[in-house]
C-alpha cells in the first residue's frame, strides 16, 4: 500500500483536529446546557499558507480568521476565483489601526477587536463610502493593567451608544483575550465576566456574539457562553513563525 500524498495526509490531519475540536465543543455544550449549533469555529489561519484555507473549506469550515491585514488581503487575492470560496466568511481578529480600516471594510464579515470611538467613526466613514454595513465586536479588557488593548468595562456603555448612532456600523457583541495561562481553567473567570458584562448591557438580544476562547481554553469558553471560538493550533498545528 503506497503512502498517502502530502495533500491527503494534510487533509486527514486537519480533519482529525476538526473532529476533536467539534467533539470538545459538543461535550462543553452538554455541560453548559447549550446546543453545539450555538458555537461557530473560526479557523485561525494566520501565518499558514492560503492552501490551508482551501483545506478548511473542504472540511466544511465556513469561517477563517486572520490577524494581519496584508496577509489577509494577499490570501484573498491568491484565492480569488477558487470555486466554493465565495461563500467563505473572513474574520479579522487582530489589533486594528485606524489607517488599516479602509483595507478591511468590505473584505471581512466581522472585525473582532474594536476598542475606540475613533475606530467606530472610521469604519462608519469607510463603510459608507463603500455602500455597505460593517459588523464588529467590541474588545474588552478585563485584567486592567495586565491587558493593554481593549476598552475598560466602564467605557462600554458609551461605545455601544455611539455605535447605535452610526448607520454603517453594527456592533454585534464582545470579544476578550484572557492573559496567557498554563491551564484552561485559569481563563474561566474572564469568560464568565465577559458574558455577565454582555448580560448587563442588553443581553443576547442586543449583543448576540461572544468571541472568546482559543485552542488552549475554548472548551471552558464554550461552557461560559462563547459563540465564536478562534482555533488555529488545534486544527493546523504549530505555526512556522
Amino acid at each position, binding site marked *: 500500500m503506497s503512502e498517502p500524498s502530502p495533500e491527503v495526509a494534510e487533509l486527514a490531519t486537519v480533519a482529525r483536529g476538526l473532529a476533536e475540536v467539534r467533539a470538545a465543543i459538543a461535550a462543553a455544550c452538554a455541560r453548559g446546557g447549550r446546543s453545539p449549533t450555538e458555537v461557530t469555529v473560526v479557523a485561525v489561519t494566520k501565518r499558514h499558507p492560503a492552501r490551508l484555507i482551501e483545506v478548511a473549506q473542504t472540511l466544511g469550515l465556513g469561517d477563517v480568521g486572520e490577524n494581519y491585514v496584508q496577509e489577509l488581503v494577499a490570501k484573498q487575492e491568491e484565492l480569488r476565483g477558487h470555486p466554493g470560496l465565495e461563500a467563505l466568511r473572513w474574520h479579522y481578529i487582530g489589533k486594528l489601526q485606524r489607517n488599516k480600516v479602509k483595507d478591511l471594510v468590505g473584505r471581512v464579515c466581522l472585525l473582532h477587536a474594536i476598542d475606540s470611538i475613533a475606530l467606530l467613526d472610521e469604519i462608519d466613514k469607510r463603510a459608507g463610502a463603500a455602500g455597505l454595513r460593517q459588523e464588529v465586536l467590541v474588545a474588552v479588557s478585563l485584567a*486592567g493593567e495586565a491587558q493593554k488593548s481593549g476598552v475598560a468595562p*466602564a467605557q462600554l456603555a458609551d461605545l455601544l451608544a455611539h455605535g447605535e448612532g452610526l448607520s454603517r456600523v453594527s456592533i454585534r457583541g464582545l470579544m476578550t483575550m484572557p492573559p496567557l495561562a498554563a491551564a484552561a481553567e485559569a481563563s474561566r473567570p474572564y469568560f464568565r465576566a465577559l458574558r455577565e458584562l454582555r448580560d448587563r448591557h442588553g443581553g443576547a438580544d442586543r449583543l448576540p456574539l461572544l468571541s472568546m476562547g482559543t485552542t488552549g481554553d475554548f472548551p471552558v469558553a464554550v461552557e461560559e457562553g462563547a459563540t465564536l471560538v478562534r482555533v488555529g493550533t488545534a486544527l493546523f498545528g504549530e505555526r512556522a513563525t
Partner: protein
Amino acid sequence: MDVPATFADAEAAAPPLILASASPRRRELLERVGLRVEVWPADVDESVHPAELPLSYALRVAASKAEVIARLHPERTVLAADTVVSVGESIYGKPLDAAQAREMLQQLQGRSHEVTTAVALRGPAGLSRTLVVAAEVEMRTLLASEIDEYLGCGEWRGKAGGYAVQGIAAGFVRAVRGSVTAVIGLPLAEVLELLYETGAARPAYSSRGTAA
C-alpha cells in the same frame, strides 16, 4: 561565609516568602502546607473605581499590594491576594460597621453570590505572575435574629461580604461551587501550582512534624 552542607540546608537558608496581607487566614493556609511566610501588610487604594468589574478590582488590588511590598524588598518573592464578594456587578467589600454588615448579610442570604480571589506574585529577575479563581456560594435564608446574633459575635469584622465561610458562617453556606480556599481568601491549589512552577517554593509537608 558558611556554605550550606546539603540542599536542604540551602533551602532552609533561603529567605521565606513574603505575604503582603494582614489576613491571618491566608497566612494559616500557607503555613498549613509547610511554607514559611513573612507578613508585610500592604496599604493600597482599595476603593472601587467607577463601573469596575469585581474581577478587574480583585486583580488591580492584588497587583497593587504585591508591587508596593516588592518595591520595599526587591530581592524577595512577594505574594499578595484580594478577595471580592459580588452579586453581578455589585461588589460587597469589607463592611465599615455592623450596620453595613447587617445590610450585606440581608442581601446575600437566601441567594447565590460570587467570591473571586486574585493572586499576584512578584519577585526578582522580573518575576510577575497573576491568577484569579472564582467560586459560587449559595447561602441559605437567615433569620433576622440569626443575623443579630452573628453581628454580636463580631466575626463579620474585616471580612469581604461580612461573613467568614470557615467560621460560624459555615452554617450559613449551603454550597460552594468551585474552590473552597478561594472563598476563604487564597486558592491554595492554584497558588501551590504557581509557586512550584516559578521555583518560589517547594513542597514541605513533612517538615511540619506531627499534624494536629
